[in-house]
C-alpha cells in the first residue's frame, strides 16, 4: 500500500520554530502520565471504597501487607506477559507452567537433593540449587514453546493452550497429585510473611530506593537540558520528588507498622533459647518477595526501554514485517520472549509455593487469566506494540484488591468472579475510549 496522504505540502509542513512541537511534546508527556494517574486514581478509589465498606479494615497495615504478598506471584508473571502480548502473542500456559516449576522445585528440595543425592534435609545449598533447577526448567519449557510459535509458526494461542493442559498434568504426574512439603526453611523465606527485612532493613532499602529514584529524576532532567529540550519547572520537579518520597517511605512505614504477633515473637525467642522481654514488639517490614518483584520490575523496565532486545520487542509488535525487513530475527526473538516468560513463571513458582510452604496440586490454577487480565488492565494492547511493566503491576494490584476487598466485604464467591470479569471488560473499553480521545492508534 502506497502512502498517498500528501496533505502536508512543504509549506504546510514547515513548523516555523520548534517551540510549538516541543510544547505539544510536553502535553503528550503529561497525557502519558495522565493514563498512569487514571489507573492510580482508580486504584485509590477502590481502596478507599473498600475501607469505608469494611469499617476501616481494608487499609490496615496487616491487610496492605497481605495484599502485597498476594499480588507478587501474578505481578511477576504479568511483567513477562507484557512482552508476550506486545509481540501479538498470548501465553495461556503460565499458571500450568508455574505448577510444573513448583513441582520440580518441591521434588528437588524434598526428595532429589536430600535423598537421591544425599545432601540431607536442611543442607544450606538446597534452596539455591532448587531455585536454579526451577529456573532452568521454566526457561527451557518457555523456550520450547517459543520455538513452536516462532520457528514452526504454530499460533501462540494453540501452543500455550496445549501447554496449559500439558504442564498442569506434568506437575500432577511428577507429584502423583500429592501435596509436597514442608519446603526448605530458607526457601519459604521467599514467600512473604516468613521472610521480611525487619524494620531497620526496610528503612535502609526504602532510603536507597528513594535515592535511586531521585538520582534518576535528576539524571533525566540533566540529559534534557544537555540536549536543549524544555524541562518541567523546578517546582513541578520538586513536587514530583516529594510525591515519590512520600510513596516509597510511606509504603515502608506501613509495612513496618504491621507487627509480628506476640505469640510468634515468643516462639522466635524460644527457638533461640531466650525469653522475650516484656512489651517487646517488632514490625515485619518489606517482604523479600516484594523486593524480588521490585527488582524484576526495574530490570524489565530497563530491558523494555533501554536495550536492543526491548526495542525489537516493541518494533516487532508494531509491525512484524518491518522488524523482519530491518534485520531483526523475529523468530529467535519469539523464543527469547517465551523463555523469559518461562523464567518468570519459575520465579513466581518460588514465591507462590514458598508462601504456602508446600507444593499443592492446584497451585497457580487460573493464574493465566489473572496474569493476562493484569497486563491488559495495565494498558497492554492486545493488538501489539504497546504496554508498560508498571502498568501491568498496577493491574495485578487492582485485580488482587478487588478480589480481597470483595471477600472482606462478604460478597459471595460467584459474584466476586462476575465483578472481576466485568471490570476486565470495562477496563479495556475505557482504554479504547482513552486511546481514541488522545488519537493513539
Amino acid at each position, binding site marked *: 500500500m502506497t502512502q498517498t496522504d500528501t496533505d502536508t505540502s*512543504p509549506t504546510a509542513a514547515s513548523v516555523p520554530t520548534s517551540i510549538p512541537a516541543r510544547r505539544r511534546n510536553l502535553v503528550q508527556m503529561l497525557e502519558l502520565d495522565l493514563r498512569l494517574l487514571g489507573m492510580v486514581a482508580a486504584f485509590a478509589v477502590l481502596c478507599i471504597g473498600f475501607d469505608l465498606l469494611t469499617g476501616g479494615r481494608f487499609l490496615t497495615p496487616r491487610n496492605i501487607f497481605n495484599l502485597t504478598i498476594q499480588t507478587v506471584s501474578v505481578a511477576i508473571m504479568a511483567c513477562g506477559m507484557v512482552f508476550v502480548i506486545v509481540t501479538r502473542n498470548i501465553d495461556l500456559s503460565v499458571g500450568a507452567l508455574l505448577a510444573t516449576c513448583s513441582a520440580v522445585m518441591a521434588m528437588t528440595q524434598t526428595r532429589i537433593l536430600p535423598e537421591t543425592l544425599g545432601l540431607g534435609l536442611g543442607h544450606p545449598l538446597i534452596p539455591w540449587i532448587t531455585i536454579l533447577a526451577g529456573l532452568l526448567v521454566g526457561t527451557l519449557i518457555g523456550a520450547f514453546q517459543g520455538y513452536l510459535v516462532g520457528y514452526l509458526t504454530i499460533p501462540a494461542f494453540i501452543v500455550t493452550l496445549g501447554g496449559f493442559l500439558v504442564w498442569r498434568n506434568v506437575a500432577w504426574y511428577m507429584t502423583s497429585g500429592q501435596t509436597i512439603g514442608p519446603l526448605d526453611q530458607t526457601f519459604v523465606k521467599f514467600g512473604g510473611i516468613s521472610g521480611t527485612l525487619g524494620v531497620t532493613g526496610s528503612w535502609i532499602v526504602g532510603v536507597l530506593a528513594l535515592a535511586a529514584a531521585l538520582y534518576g529524576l535528576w539524571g533525566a532532567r540533566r540529559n534534557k537540558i544537555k540536549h536543549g529540550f524544555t524541562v518541567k519547572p523546578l517546582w513541578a520537579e520538586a513536587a514530583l520528588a516529594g510525591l515519590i518520597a512520600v510513596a516509597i517511605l510511606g509504603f515502608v512505614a506501613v509495612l513496618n507498622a504491621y507487627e509480628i504477633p506476640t505469640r510468634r515473637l515468643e516462639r522466635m525467642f524460644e527457638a533461640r533459647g531466650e525469653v522475650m522481654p516484656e512489651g517487646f514488639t517488632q514490625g515485619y517490614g518489606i517482604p523479600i518477595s516484594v523486593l524480588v518483584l521490585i527488582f524484576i520490575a526495574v530490570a524489565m523496565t530497563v530491558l523494555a526501554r533501554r536495550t536492543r532486545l526491548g526495542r525489537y520487542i516493541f518494533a516487532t509488535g508494531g*509491525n512484524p514485517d518491518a522488524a523482519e525487513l530491518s534485520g531483526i530475527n523475529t523468530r529467535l526473538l519469539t523464543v527469547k520472549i517465551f523463555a523469559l516468560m518461562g523464567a518468570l513463571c519459575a520465579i513466581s513458582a518460588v514465591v507462590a509455593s514458598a508462601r504456602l510452604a508446600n507444593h499443592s496440586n492446584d497451585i497457580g490454577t487460573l493464574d493465566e487469566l489473572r496474569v493476562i487480565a493484569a497486563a491488559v488492565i495495565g494498558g497492554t494492547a492486545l493488538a501489539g506494540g504497546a504496554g508498560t511493566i508498571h502498568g501491568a503491576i498496577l493491574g495485578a494490584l487492582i485485580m488482587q484488591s478487588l478480589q480481597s476487598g470483595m471477600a472482606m466485604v462478604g460478597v459471595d464467591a460467584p459474584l466476586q468472579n462476575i465483578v472481576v470479569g466485568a471490570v476486565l471488560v470495562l477496563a479495556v473499553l475505557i482504554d479504547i475510549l482513552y486511546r481514541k480521545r488522545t488519537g493513539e492508534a
Partner: protein
Amino acid sequence: MTGTKRTKADTPLVEMRDMCISFGGVHAVDHVSVDLHAGEVVGLLGHNGAGKSTLIKMLSGAYKADSGEIRINGERVEIHNPRDARRHNIETIYQTLALADNLDAASNLFLGRELVTPFGLVDEDAMEAETRKIMARLNPNFAKFSEPVSALSGGQRQSVAIARAVYFNARILIMDEPTAALGPHETQMVSELITQLKSEGIGIFLISHDIHDVMELCDRASVMKNGKLVGTVDVDDVTDDDLLGMIILGKQPGQASATEG
C-alpha cells in the same frame, strides 16, 4: 543527467541472473536477469504487478528466490534474509516503507542497528541527534522527532524510510518508488540525493512509474512485463515513447514483435 562512463569489461556491482520466484501458480518473476554497476542508476519499469518489487525483494533478502543466482562484484552470494543483504551493504527503501508505526523516527532509522552507550544500553539521545542531521539533508521541514511515525504524513514517513536507507553507507541502494508520496520540493531533494550518491560510487536500483524521472536520473532502464524482462536499454539511446512502448506493449525499441509470454 549524463551517465557515468563505464567500460563494458567492468565487473558489475550486482548481477541477478535468471531469477525466478512464484507464489502459488503465479510466476511473479520469470527468468529475469539484470545488473548494476557502481556509480550507476538503473531504472526498473513496468505495469502494476509486473514483478518489480518482487525482483528487488530477492536482492534485499525479503524473499528467497526459487532459482537464479546473485553475484556481487562477480562473487556468488547467498541472500536468505535481510540480515544477509545488510551484510553486503544493500539498503532498501520498500514500497510499503516497512516502518514500525509505534516507534519514533530515530528508533525506526536505527532499527536493528541501534547506537549504544558503553554500557550496552540504547543511546536514544545520540540516535535522535543523528536523525536530526540526516533529516536536515532530506526534508528540512521535518520536525516530528518524538512522535511515533503513525502520527506522520505519508511523505514524512517516506522521508524516514529514505533516511534509513542512505544513513548506513550503502554500496547498493534499492529504491522502490521512493518519491511516490513526496511533495515537489522533497522530490527534488531526493533527486539531488540520488545524483550525489551516484557520484559517490553507489549503485542504485530505482523503481519508478515516472518516465520523466527515469529519463532524467537513470543511466539504464530495465522494463518488466508480466514477470518477464522485456529488455534493458541505455536511456540516452531511447525516447520516452520507446520506453512507454516497452512498458505497455512489451516491445523492444526498433523491433516489431513483442517478447511477451
